[in-house]
């Protein structure tokens, strides 16, 4: 099997929710050995989100990891954590500073154990400043970043996306910074401590608007699916319930091609629509006219006809469209994998022993030499033996003892 780009890198991951586990899952897909430290005493709440236990979530965040049970709050877990640090290249966590200190794994202690370890600390708002210690989460941060005020319907004040916006941005920043820190450590011998912030990771995605306000005192407006510099640029209703096709025309050539697809009805020759500025000025009417054409066709057919003529167009996809997408299938995007369902009523303690099947997405980086890996989602504690006995070289008696006192559980 081809190697991953991060072959030989070992990472200790400690923390719940979305951004942090996703970081580890992508590291693992890139070939790193990621040891996820968790405990059946306080399982990640994400295991219990409605729908997640049914395969629609957790494997995407934890596949391919080495999963051990260790209750970091237990005093006897402390030396084990430090053994892990000593044998690892990086430590990634999203716990707050005072909690890590309480457990004896504050960053100075971690660094004292392993002077070369790279520390990646995910925070809400950063370690310093007036809001230090505040909780910021990925989903509401779409609002604190200003996305929701510039998104959606002109007649509303605010619009939300049903997703944890900043978690994904934070995870990718962590990944980039971690690999960059590995490169730097190789070059200079020096490790890095890097802090990321859920809020700030989202804020940098509205950069041009921050400059626009400074330069022109302009606040962004909600334009639905229109674009300030293109027309037509919208989604258009198609046959069926809640079916739409996006069409975006940026050039004169694309406009002419669109008119051809529509069969060049007389209105397309109307001077109201002959230039970009005309089309912008009469955009409501233009969108209506295009929508009257698209409504007679399936969304896929609108897309195909437009694309064949060279007009950027695409179906507004739902789950079925994604699952059945010929493009994603041709590129092996979704892959089958195994996972285990937690028992909702006995949190984490009794996991079903028989695996279920689900699908997870390929990490969307098309390496020519080192393809990203896809693999299974193991049970909590499944890799205790491997990690404690083989990596940490602990004796069988020691593991047994730590299990009995409740440090390993």
């Amino acid at each position, binding site marked *: 099997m081809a190697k991953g780009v991060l072959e030989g890198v070992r990472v200790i991951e400690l923390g719940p929710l979305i951004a942090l586990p*996703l970081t580890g899952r992508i590291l693992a897909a890139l070939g790193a050995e990621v040891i996820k430290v968790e405990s059946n005493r306080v399982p990640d709440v994400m295991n219990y989100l409605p729908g997640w236990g*049914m395969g629609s*979530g957790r494997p995407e965040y934890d596949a391919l990891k080495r999963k051990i049970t260790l209750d970091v709050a237990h005093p006897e877990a402390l030396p084990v954590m430090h053994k892990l640090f000593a044998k690892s290249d990086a430590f990634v966590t999203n716990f707050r500073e005072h909690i890590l200190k309480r457990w004896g794994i504050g960053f100075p202690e971690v660094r004292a154990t392993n002077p070369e370890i790279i520390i990646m600390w995910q925070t*809400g*708002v950063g*370690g310093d400043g007036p*809001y*230090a210690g*505040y909780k*910021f989460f990925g*989903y509401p941060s779409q*609002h604190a970043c200003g*996305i929701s*005020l510039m*998104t*959606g*319907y002109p007649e509303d004040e*605010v*619009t939300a*996306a*049903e*997703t944890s916006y900043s978690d*994904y*941005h934070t995870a990718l920043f962590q990944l980039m*910074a971690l*690999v960059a820190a590995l*490169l*730097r450590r*190789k070059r200079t011998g020096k490790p*890095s401590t*890097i*802090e990321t912030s859920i809020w*700030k990771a989202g804020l*940098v995605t509205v950069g041009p608007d*921050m400059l626009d*306000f400074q*330069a022109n005192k302009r*606040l*962004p407006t*909600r334009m639905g699916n229109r*674009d300030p*510099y293109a027309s037509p*640029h919208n989604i258009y209703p198609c046959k069926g319930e809640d079916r*739409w096709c*996006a069409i*975006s025309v940026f050039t004169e050539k694309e406009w002419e091609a669109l008119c051809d697809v529509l069969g060049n009805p007389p209105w397309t020759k109307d001077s109201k629509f002959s230039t970009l500025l005309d089309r912008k000025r009469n955009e409501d009417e233009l969108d209506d006219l295009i929508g009257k054409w698209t409504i007679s066709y399936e969304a896929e057919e609108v897309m195909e006809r437009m694309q064949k003529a060279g007009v*950027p167009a695409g*179906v*507004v*996809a*739902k789950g079925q469209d*994604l699952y059945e997408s010929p493009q994603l299938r041709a*590129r092996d995007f979704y892959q089958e994998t195994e996972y285990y369902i937690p028992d909702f009523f006995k949190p984490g303690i009794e996991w079903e022993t028989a695996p279920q099947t689900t*699908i997870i*997405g390929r*990490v*969307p*980086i098309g*390496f020519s030499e*080192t393809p990203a890996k896809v693999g299974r989602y193991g049970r909590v504690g499944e890799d205790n033996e491997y990690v404690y006995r083989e990596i940490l070289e602990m004796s069988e008696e020691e593991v047994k003892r730590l299990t009995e006192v409740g440090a390993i559980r």
Partner: protein
Amino acid sequence: MAKEAGEERLLEGYRVLDLTDEKGVYCTKLLADLGADVVIVEPSSGSRGRHRGPFFHDEPHVEKSLYFLYFNTSKRSITLNLEHPDGQAIFKRLAKTADVVVETFPVGYMKTLGLDYDALSGINPKLVMTSITPFGQTGPYKDYKGSDLVAMAMGGYMQITGDPEKYPVRLGNEHSHYPTSQYAALGILGALYYRDITSGRGQYIDMSLFEPIIPYHLEQHQAAMWKFQRQNPIRVGLHSYIGIPLGVYPCKDGWAAALTTTDKEWDGLAQWIYEVTGEKAVLDEELKGVWGEGRRKRRDEVIAYIMRLSSSMTKQEFFHQAQKRDMGFEPVNTPEDILNDPHLAASGFWVELDHPVVGKLRYPRQGPFCGEDIPEIEKAAPLLGEHNKEIYCGELGFTKNDLVVLRSGGII
């Protein structure tokens, strides 16, 4: 370029040739802000980003695009006509000096120039080359045209954005360019690590605009929900179905987001609502619990309680008081709020960069990183061709007169 502490920069010493439009311009910004030497290779008219709004003082001008200024901090700029054979020859000489090439042209275009990965890796086997296209280099849609709207639509993001009673909408920040750029930057760094540690050779990375959007709304997992439950997700408006509460609530002067993620946080919120409104029912045993099955059943009622609380104060009061009670509430901010935020100012989020044409503006510092080792952004976006002399004469050994000839020949 290199300053004393130069070695400290995370990506010091790596050179990137930047042939990107809006699909990849954020990828190269990330690499540049982390310390790589990113050289934008622009046509003599300037890259596309220089021609799009918003503009400084609303004056269209190649040096005044705020869009370009934001996405090109820390980079250098040279002009080069890649469609001219002499320009292609110069690009090959540059490729010998580079670690990375990032390009966003349509599938096959680089091959027509003789500058595809096969050609360039023949010259420089250590080169990592990344192409970002709407749908990738393979598959039935590889020649389909894309845009932010098309990618957000086909990537499933619009289906979950907006109001159930209305149409799906894209995010207002041309969001699709961020996921692909972030994954591309990660792929590039990973490929460099593999090259430097293991293989000694570069590789090619095929990125699409479309696929990386899917893991940016990953918790919905739309495809699995369809495959196993025959369900499609719906738009939910301002109140999520993932948790209750998880939504946006009106305040005296705007909006704020509220959620609870533990039993303790719900108990704290219920107590707070009770203290402010005197509403006893909010303390009901049935409503307790981390994901609140009881709250789910009485969803509208719970939302109404929180609205009574939120609308009794300003969004800043609601935000700070909640945080003091250890709940992760956040204000709904405008760019103006963000620019005036005391925490961001105090924690060094901003850096003021001086640009010879537009002057001083505040930019987000260091991306989101604040570690001791992360280089600060030091340079505003380059002027068009600002580094021609530095690179063509200083590095490739052209004379000043050669530049005059190349310029007159339409090559630089």
